[in-house]
């Protein structure tokens, strides 16, 4: 999947994201989110950091720039992580492109 860094992404209406005791829990709302209907989803540490920036306001380029200022990594490395996460979340229908 090719992603444009100019695109803004937001949480899909098909999931509910909850933060409980420091854990980000993504709860499917609509049917057909996963292989089974009784499973929840969590993000790893890198995923949580990126997720916190995906607020439906910032473009992916904004997210990459902000993270590059906050972390000791190159923009290209961060862009790869951001695009990797977003692609995965879009594939799982948890994130959608904002119109």
């Amino acid at each position: 999947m090719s992603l444009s860094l100019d695109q803004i992404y937001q949480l899909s209406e098909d999931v509910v994201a909850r933060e409980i005791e420091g854990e980000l829990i993504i709860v499917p709302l609509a049917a057909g989110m996963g292989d089974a209907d009784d499973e929840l989803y969590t993000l790893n540490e890198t995923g949580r950091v990126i997720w916190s920036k995906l607020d439906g306001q910032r473009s992916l380029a904004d997210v990459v720039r902000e993270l590059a200022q906050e972390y000791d990594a190159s923009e290209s490395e961060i862009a790869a992580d951001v695009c990797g996460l977003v692609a995965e979340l879009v594939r799982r229908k948890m994130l959608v492109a904002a119109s």
Partner: protein
Amino acid sequence: MDGFVARKNIASNPLWQTREPRLSALDIELTERCDNACQHCYINLPQNDPTARAAELTTSEWKRILKEAAQLGVLRVRFTGGEPLLREDFAELYEYARRLGLRVTLFTNARRITPELAALFQRIPPLQKIEITVYGMTAETYEEVTCAPGSFAEFRRGIDLLLASGVPFLVKSVDLPQMRHELPAFQAWAATLPGMELPASVTRILDLRARRDSPARSKHIAALRGDPEEVARNRLASSNLRADILRLAADQHGANALFGCAAGACALPTIDARGRMQACMLLRAPQLAYDLRAGSMTDALEHFFPRLGWMKSETPAFLRRCARCFLRNICDQCAAKSWMESGTLDTPVEYYCQVTHAIARQVGLLAEGERSWDVTNGRERANRILGGINEPEPGSNLSTL
């Protein structure tokens, strides 16, 4: 793990990296009313009971509670009753709970599953199997139990709607004299249903009226209870259960604590239809319930329920029997059931003693005529039997020990 996202089946994977939320699950008794009138039931009030209906929480009150539950970290709520589908706002409350990110278990008799409700469950799945209690395999038996003409056809229609919609559910039943002869047919039918990975559970011990609201009904329920030896045999039909029983007996230590169970930690509380928070679904002693109309779950958890963990019995009968009983951990006796039976929190319940003694005799922990509270070497007895089980005979299904 697939990249950044991990899928968690929380029944088999730990969800929490550091600390768990204060509350992870909550039982919600939406109504005490039911459209069935089963004589064995511990809680049902008539469907149109005006007093019960008037006392129920409103939609907005339930929403406030659900919202606070989500804020406390609750991931699963169980909607039960009475018959929760009698609430006209059920669909609204269900969708509200799901949109808060809660998984929902529904306990129902399935009579009021409509095409609209089945479609809702299909569109927004509960993420937990719906649990349906079955009272018979024929209309004659079913309606003899439910005392509700036409209920069997409605139940079957509800089942068919869920099947057609692909909504996962499981079925369970009750060991009642009226339907005992149909239990084999029930199990055979249950095994054909798509959601049934395990044999259907069958309630073997009936609880008396939970609110102590009808001595006559409680007396009737007691009369419906099965013979203790037979109940014990049925419970032991699972060899794993037998192993568990022996382990529990081996680990038992006598104590006068009233709440040695999860209720003492208020780990799975219940909110009743009137907004009273209880430490467990059965614990309805008024002095141990917290009025959520006048407070909050947070206040109840921080300031009201912790005292349960410290409560101890000073009743001679309890101290002489339950506190010394090496079978305490496998007995149904608890403060809630004691209150249902006797109105106190710590009166030994003779029926539970009979069933537990029967189980213990059948697994070789007790000799005929022995009383468990007189046994001083219970742990040794259990360990001796466990040692025998650890050397299974060829072909034994106890080898998982």
